[in-house]
């Protein structure tokens, strides 16, 4: 069995349907009688809605309904909410601006939903949407995060200074004291560039109210269908939870953007009832995705690192402004706080850390979790700051890290920023990465590049992340409105086949394969006999979904627990069939055996007995189906070292990544091929952030990077062949599998490696994205290159 069990490079079950165009996405679904929704959106970043006149839109052919914010209010639908309460340092709760499903009184960003038009066909809805008369009184907009605090413009009239919260973490006094006696202080300012998530499949939804049953079904692009069901029922109030089914079929990528509860999906569900129960479909156009999917990152930070004379870190002080956009998205509050500041220790034993985060509203698209969510921001600033400290102290960037790593024997390690790291061996991973990258051989390669007129640089990044979110009591004490356990049901059929129902959702991660390997391994059944079912609230047990690299560490462990219950029950049945004592039954490789004998029953025989209980233990329930919930005792802490090597063309500023080595500690690995694929994808996104991607608004709040002609996504030719090693694991403690999570690592660790490599080549740190123009300008200013001339 081991050949397709834990640790095997099993090709993905889902690939056949995906690469032959047989996936089944929300937009592929067409329900009988379906109508189409088109949203009318604000063309202004900030304006008062003076008047909406529906008459001409309603008179257009095929129009079934035109609904706006007043209709939402009349039906008393709730506002969209942020599910994590963050408190300011003075104890006051964050200030959440009202976020109605359709705008009321004001619009607050270009793309804000003003109304929906529902018509017989998509084109009729488009035509009618153009005819809707909306009169605006334009208001000045606040766009620049750095200026949000003293702007005379208020995004939400009732929220002074546009400040949502002013939050802190860490021991400020201890940090101040350490700075006072520091030998050296390294200081820098960082912009963490705003990104558009750009899932391959745009968001889509079909809402359907069935008048016969007074029940609702919402097909949609979701990473967490049960969370959508919960919020739409408990907060928006469209349908009671038991009368609402949310189905997320194949979903083409999310990167966080499909976690959130947006207005559009709620509106089509509500609109279906408004038109008498015909299904209502909406599929985002790509240009709509750019202005409605929650953006990522967008921080402005000042950071200072205090060091002693030997280069040991004494303290870290970080002041960050985080952009929330116009409204709080579902998890937006916790991203720049609990998923950010808590990671600022990195892989180092820095004894004192203090972080202050002020989150501001601006007239831009809401910002929330995007692959890595908070951790890329933390890792980027720490790893580029550490590099800068090494340069200022004339140390090798490798040596300064060696000096400060948390040693292998210090685990479990309590950081000064709340987290307790369970395991890790940072120095070993680090040396392995440097060995593979031939760090010591770099000077020769640099000299060779120089001969060809190129500037070569090498950059290191030692990232850490917290995955497997999360112990419910811990996140509850920090303000989370939900528990973050996970669920699984393992069900045998008469014929010994297995259905695994999981509360997580796969949208590119390959759960259908990984989870099947897990069950094949635990229950000793063929991999091919295991089918993974997910994404339907009427089928699977209640689950919290997929994000934060949690699915295997939390959801996988729930599957393990369900398998253990199956085995426990199977032992009772086997003992009865084998006329032995239950205590003497051993289970291994799919067989229940009486210890010390060759008398055994296969799991198939036992399962059959459970469904055809003619000869069966008295009092035992028939059937073989077990459910388990798992609430992890801690996060997991993947970590790794990335080494990036670049060649810069001094004529144009172009950066060519010539080599990229990634050594990751993901603990144990179920499918190395899938894990490597996840690392590749993450690295490409991290490189995209470092070199290519970046949202630009003009001063009036118009998005300038609203299409792929202007927003640059990485292509295959922009990245090198990655050298990825994932076998250096220290098993995680929080789950029996010892797995840590791998989905975000690449996006977290790559940006600093790239930017450090460019700095190594040209002597100046370039803000992200390090476009050729920025690099070229930096080269003109570089003291290092001037000195070399």
């Amino acid at each position, binding site marked *: 069995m081991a050949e397709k069990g834990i640790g095997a490079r099993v090709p993905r079950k889902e690939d056949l349907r995906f690469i032959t165009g047989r996936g089944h996405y929300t937009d592929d679904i067409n329900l009988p009688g379906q109508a189409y929704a088109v949203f009318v959106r604000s063309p202004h970043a900030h304006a008062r809605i003076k008047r909406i006149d529906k008459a001409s839109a309603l008179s257009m052919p095929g129009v079934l309904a035109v609904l706006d914010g007043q209709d939402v209010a009349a039906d008393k639908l709730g506002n969209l909410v942020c599910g994590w309460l963050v408190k300011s340092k003075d104890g006051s709760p964050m200030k959440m601006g009202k976020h109605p499903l359709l705008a009321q009184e004001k619009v607050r960003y270009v793309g804000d939903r003003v109304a929906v038009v529902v018509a017989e066909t998509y084109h009729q809805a488009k035509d009618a949407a153009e005819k809707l008369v909306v009169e605006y009184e334009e208001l000045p907009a606040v766009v620049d995060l750095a200026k949000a605090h003293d702007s005379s413009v208020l995004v939400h009239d009732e929220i002074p200074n546009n400040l949502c919260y002013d939050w802190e973490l860490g021991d400020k006094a201890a940090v101040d004291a350490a700075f006072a006696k520091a030998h050296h202080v390294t200081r820098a300012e960082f912009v963490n560039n705003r990104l558009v998530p750009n899932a391959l499949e745009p968001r889509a939804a079909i809402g359907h109210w069935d008048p016969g049953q007074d029940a609702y079904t919402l097909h949609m692009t979701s990473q967490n269908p049960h969370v959508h069901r919960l919020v739409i029922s408990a907060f928006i109030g469209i349908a009671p939870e038991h009368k609402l089914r949310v189905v997320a079929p194949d979903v083409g990528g999310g990167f966080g953007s499909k976690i959130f509860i947006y207005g559009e999906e709620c509106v089509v569900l509500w609109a279906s009832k408004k038109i008498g129960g015909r299904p209502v479909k909406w599929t985002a156009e790509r240009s709509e995705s750019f202005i409605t999917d929650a953006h990522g990152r967008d921080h402005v930070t000042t950071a200072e690192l205090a060091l002693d004379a030997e280069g040991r870190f004494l303290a870290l002080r970080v002041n960050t402004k985080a952009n929330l956009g116009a409204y709080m998205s579902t998890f937006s509050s916790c991203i720049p706080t609990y998923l950010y500041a808590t990671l600022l220790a990195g892989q180092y034993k820095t004894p004192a850390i203090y972080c202050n985060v002020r989150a501001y509203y601006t007239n831009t698209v809401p910002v929330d979790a995007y692959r890595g969510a908070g951790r890329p921001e933390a890792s980027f600033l720490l790893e580029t700051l550490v590099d800068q400290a090494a340069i200022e102290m004339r140390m090798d960037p490798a040596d300064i890290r060696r000096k400060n790593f948390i040693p292998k024997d210090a685990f479990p390690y309590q950081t000064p920023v709340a987290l307790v790291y369970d395991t890790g061996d940072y120095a070993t991973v680090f040396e392995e990465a440097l060995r593979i990258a031939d760090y010591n051989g770099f000077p020769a390669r640099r000299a060779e590049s120089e001969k060809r007129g190129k500037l070569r640089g090498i950059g290191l990044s030692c990232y850490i992340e917290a995955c497997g979110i999360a112990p419910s009591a811990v996140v509850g004490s920090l303000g989370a409105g939900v528990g973050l356990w996970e669920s699984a049901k393992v069900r045998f059929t008469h014929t010994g086949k297995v259905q695994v129902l999981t509360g997580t959702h796969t949208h590119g991660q390959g759960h259908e394969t990984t989870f099947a390997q897990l069950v094949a391994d635990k229950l000793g059944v063929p991999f091919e006999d295991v089918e993974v079912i997910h994404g339907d609230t009427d089928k699977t047990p209640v689950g919290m979904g997929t994000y934060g690299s949690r699915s295997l560490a939390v959801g996988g462990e729930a599957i393990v627990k369900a398998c253990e219950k199956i085995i426990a029950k199977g032992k009772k049945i086997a003992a009865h069939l084998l006329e032995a004592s239950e205590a003497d039954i051993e289970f291994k490789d799919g067989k229940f055996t009486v210890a010390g004998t060759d008398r055994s029953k296969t799991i198939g025989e036992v399962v059959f007995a459970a469904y055809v209980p003619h000869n069966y233990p008295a009092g035992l329930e028939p059937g073989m189906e077990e459910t388990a919930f798992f609430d992890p005792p801690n996060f997991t802490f993947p970590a790794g070292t990335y080494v990036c090597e670049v060649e810069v063309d001094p004529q144009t500023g172009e950066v060519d990544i010539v080599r990229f080595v990634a050594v990751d500690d993901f603990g144990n690995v179920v499918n190395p091929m899938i894990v490597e694929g996840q690392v590749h994808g993450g690295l490409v996104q991290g490189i995209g952030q470092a070199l290519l991607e970046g949202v630009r608004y003009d001063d009036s709040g118009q998005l300038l990077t609203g299409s*792929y*002609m*202007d927003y640059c996504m990485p292509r295959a030719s922009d990245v090198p062949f990655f050298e990825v090693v994932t076998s250096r694991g220290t098993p995680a403690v929080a789950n029996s599998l010892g797995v840590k999570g791998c989905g975000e690592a690449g996006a977290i660790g790559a940006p600093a490696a790239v930017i450090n490599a460019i700095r190594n080549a040209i002597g100046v740190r370039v803000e992200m994205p390090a476009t050729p123009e920025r690099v070229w300008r930096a080269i003109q200013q570089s003291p290092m290159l001037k000195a070399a001339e």
Partner: protein
Amino acid sequence: MYAFEYFRPTTLAEAAQLLASNPEAKLLAGGQTYIPTLKQRLAKPSAVIDLGRIAELRGIHEEAGGLTIGAMTRHAEVASSPLVKRVIPALAALAEGIGDPQVRNRGTLGGSIANNDPAADYPAAVLGLGATVRTSKGRAIAADDFFTGMFETALEPDEIVTAVHFPKPEKAAYAKFPNPASRYAIVGVFVAKTASGVRVAVTGAAPCVFRATAIEQALEQVWSEASIDGVTIDPTNLNSDIHAQADYRAHLVKVMAKRALRAAG
């Protein structure tokens, strides 16, 4: 897309007649620019006249030592044509560098120059080689007169580009600094040594393709990279946008001119 009438003529005469009798009609070549324009509802034509079935608008042949390329010839056909590679290899290389394979398989020479996008590649070759644009009205428009401004040409509203004639240069090459997102030119420079002298055409840098006369004069003196070093490119009338500021574009004009010169030999 708004609704429109759709015509698919098979002869040039028929297409010209349709265009003349439908003042609000537009031509469709490979649709690489026009289909997105329609989908975004930025255009509302009464009719669309698809040139895709007109055989006489397609093809590459040798003429007077140079090349004549039909307006409906796809970028990919030019890029892979042995004839183009033999007679004017710089043209094949330029076509090979346009956009991505999908764009090259649909986009056309006629569509590119009729559209005259300030960042398009072909206008640089047409101007750099001193080509002649032939039209349905029997006109032969010199490149120097054809590109009149941003997205503007000397074509009349009911005039169709039928072909472009490229004289064979002594040597020529094109170097482009692509926009990493769209792959259009942030700056593209076509350098040619022709029977009538040195011609240097710059695309991407300004609102319309133009001849860099200062570089031409310098190269006329001495055909060398050092000549280009001595030239100053004035950024005043160059584009500044989120992708590149004018001074950077001015710098790139020289860098690309030198690269083109090196490639031309």
